[in-house]
């Protein structure tokens, strides 16, 4: 049973009115349940895809896409970034493209040092 059944069906929190649903006997916010379903389905799909005979490059792109989608759902809904002020979103996401630049620079450097290094963007050719 729920731990706080006394709360009304559509309670207000920091982010406005919240819709609640019953799931396996637990009272959950509708969006939390929705995210749980998305994460579960994508995890099953990720594992399932590795057992297929799909081309490794296509598989890699699909797996990265699914992982980024899952991570985004966790960040936006469970870490509440969706409801934060835009400045906090900038704090959280600005380093991401910077780390991509960092990775690209390192790979270009490593290409000259390591023999047989295949850069990720060459894999897609």
């Amino acid at each position, binding site marked *: 049973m*729920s*731990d*706080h059944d006394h*709360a009304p069906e559509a*309670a207000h*929190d*920091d982010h406005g009115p919240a819709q609640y649903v019953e799931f396996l006997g*637990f009272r*959950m*916010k509708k969006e*939390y349940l929705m995210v*749980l379903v998305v*994460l*579960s389905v994508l*995890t*099953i799909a*990720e*594992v399932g895809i*590795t057992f297929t005979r799909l081309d490794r490059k296509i*598989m*890699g792109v699909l*797996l*990265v896409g*699914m*992982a980024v989608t*899952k*991570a985004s759902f*966790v*960040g936006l809904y*469970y*870490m*509440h970034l969706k409801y*934060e*002020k835009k*400045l*906090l979103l900038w*704090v*959280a996401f600005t*380093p991401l493209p910077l*780390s991509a630049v*960092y*990775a690209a620079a*390192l*790979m270009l450097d*490593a290409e000259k040092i*390591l*023999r*047989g*290094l*295949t*850069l*990720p963007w060459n894999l897609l050719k």
Partner: protein
Amino acid sequence: MSALAKAQRRIEPTFGAATTGKVGMWIYLVTDAMTFAGLLIAYGILRAGNTQWPLPTSVLGIQFTAVMTFVLIISSVTMVQALDAAKHGDAKGAARWLFATVGGGLFFLLGQVYEYRHLIHEGFTLPSGNFPATFFVVTSFHGAHVFTGVTYLFIIAMGVRKGKFLDRGANKVEIAGLFWHFVDLVWILVFTFVYLI
């Protein structure tokens, strides 16, 4: 100074209603993400430079790790449930959900120990190659975060059980939750890059 004035001092107006503690945790998480990014980039470079790199799915137990991943995802759900209960002033419910989250984290850690023992028994050891070396460094670094999160949440849960940490919109519970969700988020990426691709 009045209680209201003290509370207002703890809110960082530049970031809306976010408290200074919450903004501080976000800044810490961003720097921590950079550390993980560095490790994953190193993994990627070493892998790309090695034509003999084994297919991870042929070496690692994917189904077992998928269960661990699912438990970590569930623990994120129990964490948001704990915060929701705490925000409603339900100390007993919040503590129960927090202990469930701690349980999920402990299950993950025990799973990791079992996985390491199995792999080491199979000869998959730290000095046996670049793949095992990077695998153990990345996953154990994440494991250290899970251990920290479990300890952090356990302390918060004990406090919540006694009626503490529920003031100011359960701010301390929310900050602890941010750390835990980050641990889950990072594992989603580690699972894909190290285990699946």
